[in-house]
C-alpha cells in the first residue's frame, strides 16, 4: 500500500514536472557516462550561459501567464545592448544604463498599448515590433558588431563574486524579485486570474488593462536588462544577437510547464525550462558523435520540444477521453 502511494507520487511529479524529469534523466546519464560534467566549473558555466535567457524568460513568462505573448524580446535585447554601448561614450555609465533599460520599458509600453489597450493580436504586433527594432539596431550599429569603449563594462559581465559569476547573481536577484511578485502580491495573483479567465477576472473587479499592460512593460525592462548583461559578457553589441531569441525563449517557458494559453506556470518552472536547453547545449558536445555534428544537436532539441509538448497534450487528451 505504501509503495503504491509512492508510485503515484512519482507518477504525479513526472507528469507535472516534465522539464525537471528530463533534466534529471540527462543528469543521471551524464553521471554514468561523463562524470566530468559535474565539476563545479562546468555547472557554473551552464548557469552563466543560461542566465541572460533566464532573465528574459522571467519577463516572457509573466506576459504569457497574464494571457499575452511578447515576441519582441529578441529585438529589445539587441536594442538595449547597442544603446548602452553607443551612449557610454557621451554620458556616465548609470545614465546610459538607465536609458538602455528605459528603451526596453518604452517598447514594452508601446507593445502594451497596441495589444492590450487597442486589442490587436499580440502575436503579430510584437513580431512586427521585433522586426522594426532589428532595423533600428542595424542602423545604430552600422550593421556590424560594435565594441564597448570602456574596459570596465566588459569586465563586469565576466567578473565573479564569491566564486560565482556576477551574471548568475543578477539572474538570482531577478528570479527572487519575480518569484515574490508573482506569488505574494496582488499583482501576481491578478496575472494568474486574467490569464485563467479574462471575463471572470474583469467581473470580479480586476483592472485587466493595467495588469496586462504592466506585464508587457516588465517584460520589456527585463529583456533590456538581459540585453545589457549579454553585451557586457560579450563586450559588444550587435543586431544579429536577437534573431530567433523570442521564439526560443517562449518555447523554453512552455517546456518548463507554463501554459501558453495563460493562467498557469511560474518562475522556477521557467528557469528549469531554460536550464534544460542550456544543459543540452553543454552536455551534447561532450560526446564525439555530437561534437562532430552540430546539426544533430539541433535535431535532438527539436525532437525534445515535440516530445515534451506532445506528452503534455497527449495526457490532456487521455483525460478528456476518460471523462
Amino acid at each position: 500500500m505504501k509503495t503504491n502511494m509512492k508510485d503515484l507520487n512519482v507518477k504525479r511529479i513526472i507528469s507535472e514536472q516534465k522539464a525537471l524529469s528530463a533534466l534529471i534523466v540527462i543528469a543521471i546519464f551524464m553521471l554514468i557516462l561523463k562524470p566530468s560534467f559535474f565539476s563545479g566549473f562546468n555547472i557554473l558555466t551552464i548557469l552563466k550561459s543560461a542566465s541572460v535567457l533566464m532573465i528574459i524568460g522571467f519577463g516572457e513568462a509573466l506576459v504569457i501567464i497574464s494571457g499575452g505573448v511578447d515576441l519582441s524580446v529578441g529585438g529589445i535585447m539587441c536594442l538595449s545592448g547597442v544603446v548602452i554601448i553607443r551612449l557610454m561614450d557621451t554620458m556616465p555609465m548609470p545614465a546610459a544604463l538607465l536609458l538602455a533599460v528605459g528603451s526596453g520599458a518604452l517598447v514594452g509600453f508601446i507593445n502594451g498599448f497596441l495589444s492590450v489597450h487597442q486589442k490587436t493580436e499580440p502575436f503579430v504586433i510584437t513580431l512586427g515590433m521585433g522586426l522594426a527594432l532589428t532595423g533600428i539596431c542595424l542602423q545604430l550599429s552600422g550593421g556590424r558588431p560594435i565594441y564597448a569603449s570602456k574596459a570596465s563594462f566588459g569586465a563586469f559581465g565576466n567578473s565573479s563574486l564569491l566564486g560565482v559569476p556576477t551574471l548568475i547573481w543578477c539572474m538570482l536577484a531577478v528570479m527572487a524579485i519575480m518569484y515574490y511578485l508573482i506569488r505574494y502580491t496582488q499583482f501576481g495573483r491578478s496575472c494568474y486570474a486574467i490569464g485563467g479567465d479574462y471575463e471572470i477576472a474583469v467581473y470580479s473587479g480586476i483592472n485587466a488593462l493595467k495588469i496586462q499592460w504592466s506585464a508587457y512593460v516588465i517584460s520589456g525592462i527585463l529583456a533590456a536588462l538581459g540585453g545589457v548583461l549579454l553585451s557586457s559578457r560579450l563586450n559588444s553589441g550587435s543586431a544579429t544577437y536577437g534573431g530567433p531569441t523570442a521564439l526560443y525563449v517562449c518555447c523554453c517557458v512552455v517546456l518548463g510547464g507554463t501554459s501558453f494559453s495563460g493562467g498557469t506556470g511560474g518562475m522556477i518552472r521557467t528557469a528549469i525550462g531554460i536550464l534544460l536547453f542550456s544543459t543540452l547545449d553543454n552536455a551534447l558536445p561532450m560526446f564525439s558523435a555530437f561534437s562532430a555534428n552540430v546539426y544533430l544537436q539541433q535535431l535532438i532539441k527539436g525532437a525534445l520540444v515535440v516530445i515534451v509538448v506532445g506528452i503534455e497534450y497527449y495526457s490532456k487528451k487521455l483525460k478528456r477521453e476518460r471523462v
Partner: protein
Amino acid sequence: METETKTKKSALNRIVYKILNEYLVVVGIILFAVFTMIMEPNFMTVSNMGNLMRQFGPLAFVSLGMTFIILAGYIDLSIAGMFSLVSAVSISQANQYGAGRAILVGLLIGLAAGLINSLLLLLFGVQNSAGALFITYGMSLIYGALALMYSNGATIHLKDGVSGLEALGKGAVGIVPISFILFLALLALLFFLQSKTYIGRSVSYTGGNPVASRLSGIPVKRVTLLIFSLCGLMTAVGAIVLFSRVTSSGPTEGTGYDTNSIMAVVIGGTSLKGGKGNVLRTVVGVAVVTLMSNCLNLLGVSSYMQDFTKGIIMILAIWLDNRSGMMGGAAVED
C-alpha cells in the same frame, strides 16, 4: 428635400465607412504606390512590373498554404525548416537528374513533412494554435537540422541548363513571368477548393468553432490532414520557384518565411483566431509586403531602415485594420 440630401449624405458616409472598414489596407497600399510613382518614375516601367511579379513568388505560395492553417485556427512554424529542406534536396536532385525529378521529389518532401506535422498533432490531440505553434516549432528545428545535414551547411548552386527550372525561374509570356501564371492558377484552384467544396468550407467552420464543428459531424481530422499537407505542398512550390529564380540555395534558405507568411495573411485581414478570412485577402497581404519592399528599394531607403519601415508599416496596417473593425462595429450599432 432636406431629408433626401440627408439620406444621400448618410449613404455616402456608409460607402466611405465600408471602404475604410473592409479595404483600408488596400487604400493605404494604393496611396503608397502612387507616392512612389510620383517620386520615382522608374516604378511604372515594364521591367519593374516584371520584377514585381517575380518578387511576388515564394512568399505568395507559402502564404496561400498558411491561409488555410490560420483559417482552421492552427499555426505552422515548421515552414522555415520545410522550405530549407525542400530547397536543399530538390536543388541537388535537379543537378543530378534534371527538372522533372527535382520538382517531384521537392513536392513529395513538402507533402510528407506536412503529413507528419498533421499526424503528430492528431496523435497528441492538439486542437489549438498554441499547441500547434510549439509542435511545429520543434518540427522546424528537426527539418532545418536535416537540411543542414544534407547540404553540410554549404550553399548549393543550380547548374546551368536545367531547362524546366530555367523556364520556371526566368521564363515569361510577354511581361508576365511563368511563376506568376503558376501563382494565378494555384490561386484559382485554392479559391475554388476553399469556397466551393465541402472540405474547403469545413476549414473555416473548424476554425470558427472546433467543438461545434466536431459535434455537427464536420470531418475535423480530415481537415487537419488536408491543411497541413497543403501547406507543405505550397511551401515546396515556393522553395522550388525561389531556387529556380536565384539558382542557388543556402542551408537556412527558409528563415523568415514562417513569420513573414503569418504577417502577410494577417495583414490581408484573416483573423489569427481562425474562421474568418480567405485566400484572396492573403493576396492583398502579400501584395502589401511585396510592393512595400519594391517601393522602399526604388526610393533608395537603406536596407537597415527597410527592416524598420517594414516593421512599423506592418504594425500600423494591423493596428488600423483592427481599429476600423472596431469602428465598423460601432457604426452597425448606431
